[in-house]
């Protein structure tokens, strides 16, 4: 039975090899069954996985031993990961490019391996491979903007990954520095504020299935890393509260000012992972479960929203909010799906976002944390009212839909919307199935005032925004964080140039340098 678990990530790998070596025509459809297989096998492992078991894989001729650890945490995340991958692959089956499917399958198997791995080094290796593969997925469209954004994505991710590697290596030697490096590395890779600019730049230019996966899964793996490996580093997670709150606020208010639908969704990812981190850093059982549940739900509804955006872009060819409008009559299914997604992310019952936000609200102590929580929820509501209104409602915009979306897209959207509703209503059952117990009664009427407050504040914010035309014509704020990174990049290049120019001399100076070095070494050691 334990052998079967290795096939979970070997089958997508096999799919990749198949796609690479057999140039048949319709072969990209093989990607969906591969992902579906993993999904099914993981479901089959639920009863065993709750108790947690390990399995060691020895790779031929590699001294690194891979130990797979499957417990409820890994199982939960990999289940939602495989569901999302399957749905995204169904959505993307209209893309005939074999390389695209190959890379997504490879990404899938590597990410599965990273979540299953028990050792830090295995986790790092798989995350690093996933980062490289995702780079090639992001630049798939090969426009100049996507290549620029890809480079920024790559630099940030590599920095985060190498900080993680450094922390793994120096763990025994300098434990406190290692702990800090690990946390910072995971934060950079996850796209928390103040390291979120790669997320905002990479999402608009990537193809929509890739955006869905990026927001839905890849940032979550780093958060999973924090949850899983923080005890090994003996780090105090409660300090991450500040980062969480910062991400929540910064994400929401940046999103309110954008007019590109994918950028809006990207900034909302930043905000929502702030929620997840809030739950984790509160160091209580409820908080942890709330954070985990929000992680799962966010994968689902953010994936849904990005796929809707993908459908809109496929149909109309534009990402700009001001050019869209009145799509509800032309594209009913994306309209419904987007409504489900918007309501879910805003935290309206009976969708899944409501459940997790409710648990998180219960877990957070009252005071300024609850205040920021409410403000962020209100901002989310406002932002999605804006998004939904300007895309689907109202009169037709400048760009009416040019082509109909294929059936595979509609199916994917419907499946995800259904999952959002189901995980909302049956949240407690699903969690206890995987092994988590929560005692909070989510469907209590006591929460209604809070919900009404959030919705009310949101509508108010939207109204103020519309009246002052801040939302329609946002001011050009040069975010100082963006400037900071640009300036530091320029500084490094400048230092390099100066250094290089100093070293370029005539041969006389070279000979002198050699003699000096000789003398210096001799004197240095004679002392």
């Amino acid at each position, binding site marked *: 039975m334990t052998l079967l678990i290795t096939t979970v990530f070997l089958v997508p790998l096999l799919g990749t090899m198949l796609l690479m070596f057999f140039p048949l025509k319709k072969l990209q459809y093989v990607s969906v069954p591969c992902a579906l297989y993993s999904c099914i096998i993981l479901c089959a492992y639920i009863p065993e996985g709750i108790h947690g078991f390990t399995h060691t894989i020895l790779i031929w*001729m590699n001294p690194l031993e891979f130990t797979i650890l499957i417990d409820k945490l890994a199982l939960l995340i990999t289940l939602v990961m495989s569901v999302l991958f399957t749905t995204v692959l169904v959505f993307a089956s209209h893309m005939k490019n074999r390389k695209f499917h190959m890379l997504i399958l490879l990404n899938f198997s590597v990410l599965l391996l990273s979540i299953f791995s028990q050792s830090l080094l295995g986790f790092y290796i798989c995350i690093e491979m996933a980062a490289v593969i995702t780079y090639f997925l992001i630049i798939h469209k090969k426009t100049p903007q996507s290549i620029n954004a*890809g480079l920024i994505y790559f630099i940030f991710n590599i920095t985060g990954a190498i900080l993680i590697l450094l922390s793994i290596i120096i763990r025994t030697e300098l434990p406190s520095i290692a702990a800090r490096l690990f946390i910072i590395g995971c934060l950079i890779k996850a796209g928390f504020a103040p390291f979120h600019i790669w997320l905002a730049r990479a999402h608009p230019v990537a193809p929509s299935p890739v955006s869905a996966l990026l927001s839905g899964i890849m940032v979550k793996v780093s958060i999973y890393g924090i949850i899983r490996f923080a005890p090994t580093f003996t780090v105090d997670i409660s300090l991450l509260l500040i980062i969480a709150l910062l991400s929540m606020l910064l994400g929401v208010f940046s999103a309110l000012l954008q007019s590109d639908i994918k950028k809006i969704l990207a900034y909302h990812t930043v905000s929502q992972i702030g929620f997840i981190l809030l739950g984790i850093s509160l160091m209580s059982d409820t908080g942890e479960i709330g954070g985990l549940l929000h992680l799962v739900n966010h994968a689902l509804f953010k994936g849904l929203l990005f796929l809707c955006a993908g459908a809109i872009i496929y149909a109309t060819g534009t990402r700009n909010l001001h050019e869209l409008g009145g799509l509800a009559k032309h594209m009913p299914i994306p309209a419904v799906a987007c409504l489900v997604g918007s309501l879910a992310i805003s935290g309206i019952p009976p969708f899944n976002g409501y459940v997790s936000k409710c648990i998180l609200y219960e877990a957070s102590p009252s005071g300024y944390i609850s205040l920021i929580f409410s403000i962020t929820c209100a901002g989310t509501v406002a932002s999605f009212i804006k998004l939904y209104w300007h895309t689907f409602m109202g009169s037709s915009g400048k760009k009416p839909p040019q082509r109909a979306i294929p059936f595979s897209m509609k199916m994917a959207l419907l499946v995800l919307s259904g999952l959002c509703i189901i995980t909302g209503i049956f949240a407690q059952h699903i969690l206890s199935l995987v092994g988590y117990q929560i005692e909070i009664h989510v469907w209590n009427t006591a929460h209604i005032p809070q919900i009404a407050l959030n919705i009310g504040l949101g509508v108010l914010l939207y109204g103020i925004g519309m009246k002052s035309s801040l939302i329609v014509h946002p001011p050009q704020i040069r975010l100082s964080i963006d400037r900071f990174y640009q300036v530091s990049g320029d500084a490094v290049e400048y230092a390099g140039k100066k250094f290089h120019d100093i070293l370029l001399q005539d*041969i006389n100076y070279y000979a002198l340098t*050699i003699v000096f070095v*000789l003398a210096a*070494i*001799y004197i240095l*050691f004679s002392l």
Partner: protein
Amino acid sequence: MSKLIILLVLTPMITTFLLSITAIPHKVEQKELMIIRTILSLSGFSVLFILLFLCASDMLSGEVYRYSLGGWDALSGIVLQLDILSFCIAVLSVVVCFFALVYSFTFMEHMRGLGKFDAFFFLMITGIMGVLVSRDIFNMYVFFEIVNISVYVLITTGRKKENYKASLKYLILESISSILFLLAVGIIYSTIGSLNMDYIAEGISLLRIEQPSLIILLFSLFFVSLGLKFGVVPLHFWLPDSYFAAPSPVSTVQSGIVSKIGIYAMIRILSLFGTLPSDMNYFIAVMGAMTIITGTLCALVQTDIKRMLAYSSINQIGVIIIGLGIGNPIAMKGALFHIMNHALAKAGLFLCAGILIHTRGTRKISGMKFKDSPGLTLSFILLSLSIIGIPPLNGFVSKLIICYGAIGAHFSEFTFIIFFSSILSSVYYFRVIQTFFPKHEKKALTPDVHVSTSTLLPIYILAIMCLLLGLFPDTALRIIDIIVEVIL
């Protein structure tokens, strides 16, 4: 079997001689001469491969071949010795040189036309084999000079003005290196009385107690002299010009092998000193760190692809020096593995760069666009990922092992330097990779020169070897374990 050693050095020498004969007659058709040269070169390589294959099983079990020239005893004679370290680097050199030569068959027809290129190429291989097998320190100097002279000539194929300038700069700086080396050898001979490395080792261990200042002088002379050969930082000035100006097969062999010969010589000579005091070790590692920082910062601002690759070579050699300087068996293992990985990866990258320059007509990074050959793009990506140090490629494994060695010796700052350079390396490598991808523009660029498979095949093989060594490093690591046992 030990007579095979002398054949290892003689074969390329004979091939050189035969090839230089083909350079003389002008009445014979050039085409036939080219075919004769090609056949001669390939047969020279095949003999070398056969010889190395014959030695393989003995070497891998740790045996050592010795052969004294002329039968003179070791004290005053020249002894040739082949042990596993020499064997591994010999295999590496022959493989890389073979690929470079195969690459040059299709690519450099006009330059090879006069026959001098092949002859000097084999002369360089003679020198490399000679350095690897010699157990006598003056003999090593002579073979180093043979390598140097052939490289001076090889850099000038192409006959542009920067070739001559680079060759001249290289010549002057390497002559200084030879002077310092000879001085050190003279001091050794006058105090110890023998030139054989085994006797020198015994003599130095006696000398350390009596005259420690002499040991310091010897160490500094050897370090500066050999540092000039492989490019530690205050002594690296000839490197960028030389790699930049030379044609691609020559740059390949230079960065892949000739610098590694210098490192090999340093390993041998430093092992003569016995266990170095820990501050000398730390000093070598600090030099390595400076090398990494310089290489990274200078590579960031280059606009020319071959100069960027040259500074990246300096970067990686710094990593190897850190591994050597730390002195741990683990770090030494990592350094030796990195020698192998860097030789393969850099060879592949220089060959790719050659193809890119040739087909797009420009050396500037912004001008390189090559999406017509997905195989080349994939190979370039794999090779550069290997140098950056990303799993599952081999560069990552060797850097990781070096860092574990650094931690073991409580020098954790080197870990930071090695991996920060990885981050910056990814910047300048991806700047090149991203030029592979833009969509075709409407205006036609220079018409594509057809790149034949025999030119691309070495690159593919090198990229696949990098990937395999990264995914399955065990065999290589076991061989390196044997090497480390033999050295330390």
